[in-house]
């Protein structure tokens, strides 16, 4: 069971309080109705599924109920950082080598 730092509760909480909500930073188009079939496929189905650093969404559903973003290594399952929903994708990761 993972231990996840909720950026709103400002502490680490057990995974049982959270629900994963898939890849982060996939923005819904402001002109959804005008999207092409290809764009819609990319938006709704295509996922980066990285082996390594993933940017993902979690919801602290049984806690503060907020959605937020996390950076995690999918090989070790270790969290690099978490940040609030709406904040930009971090350009630099803490402790990142290279």
């Amino acid at each position, binding site marked *: 069971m993972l231990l996840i730092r909720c950026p709103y509760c400002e502490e680490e909480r057990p995974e049982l309080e959270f629900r994963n909500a898939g890849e982060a930073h996939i923005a819904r188009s402001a002109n959804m109705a005008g999207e092409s079939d290809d764009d819609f496929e990319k938006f709704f189905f295509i996922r980066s599924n*990285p082996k390594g650093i993933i940017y993902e969404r979690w919801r602290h559903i049984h806690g503060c109920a907020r959605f937020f973003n996390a950076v995690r290594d999918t090989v070790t399952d270790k969290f690099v950082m978490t940040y609030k929903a709406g904040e930009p994708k971090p350009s630099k990761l803490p402790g990142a080598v290279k």
Partner: protein
Amino acid sequence: MKKYSVFAIAREAMRGHKGWEEQWSSPEPNKEYDVIIVGAGGHGLATAYYLATVHGITNVAVLEKGWLGGGNTGRNTTIIRSNYLYDESAGIYDHALKLWDGLSQELNYNVMYSARGVMMLAHNVHDIQVLKRHVHANRLNGIDNEWLTPEQAKEFCPPLNISKQARYPVVGAALQRRGGTARHDAVAWGYARGASARGVHIIQNCEVTGVKRAANGAVMGVDTTRGFIGAKKVGVVAAGHSSVIMNMAGVRMPLESYPLQALVSEPVKPVVPCVVMSNTVHAYISQSDKGELVIGAGTDQYVSYSQTGGLHILQHTLDAICEMFPIFTRMKMLRSWGGIVDVTPDRSPILAKTPVPGLYVNCGWGTGGFKATPGSGHVFAHTIAKDDPHPINAPFTIERFRTGRLIDEAAAAAVAH
């Protein structure tokens, strides 16, 4: 390939089993092959085997980053069935089931396919509606699947608890008698032996690090930890790592990889005679020939390549097992492990040509790929050999996610209203 038989065993017994030949050879890679298969799991090895036996293509390499059969092939709960709802799914899984029946003889390797029956439990009215929809569709598709009362279900699987006092009482079941289990390692080894004997190179400890494409976009070969290996056709059968490999070729996939855990109990004398599955209570169980209860359930909730998962997932799984089989609380978990399952948005596989000429992909089997192994390899070999899908796998395209023509078995089992 020297034939295996009881006589061969008797002969070897006389000389201390020193005369067995290698089941597969471990050659150094050539510079180039006609076809490269990425991934020496059951599906990849079966593909190579059928390329050789059905299509006469033997200049084939199967590249494996670890040891053959070491991924999901060796980590699954070996359930085999074909009682799927949609024609497309029923088509491919029943194709596989027909190949399972006779696979030991075909491969001259006892894969221990055991048609002990797969029973899926209904716990409420909604389950009955969903399972009966399957039963009727299967019947008209020529696939066996029959409806049982709770009492009949208990007769078929005596330790099952059908008490009406259970939290979710059993109210019926669908039984596919041809369903069952097989010995997972033997499937990989049997195909490896058969393919190797026909000239296929199985190259272990050889990780693909890149996919090379020509100026026209077509595949030229792959970079590996053992150097570049050329091929005009590359089939990616890398299960949880499929999207990693496809990314190397510049193709982004509708896939996510999740940890799937399973466990076995200590071995006991025969007690569970068949496979029992429940979607509502959510777990499945069978008993191996060795006597271990083989148990699985759902995935962890996050993308991961760690091959580990949380204890709470196993707890939920065993909660469900002990709800269905209250007599098992004193049984002991002996070993648990995790695999990486690649899941598509509609929970059906992708078995198709790709936008890249010469690149083929066989992935997205999610939690249920083992049962398809022979059928998947058979039609994927066809797809690669003919550069055109077999009618059975034609619906399993990548494009379906653009058009919306999904094969959504999970949605068809819609959650309760």
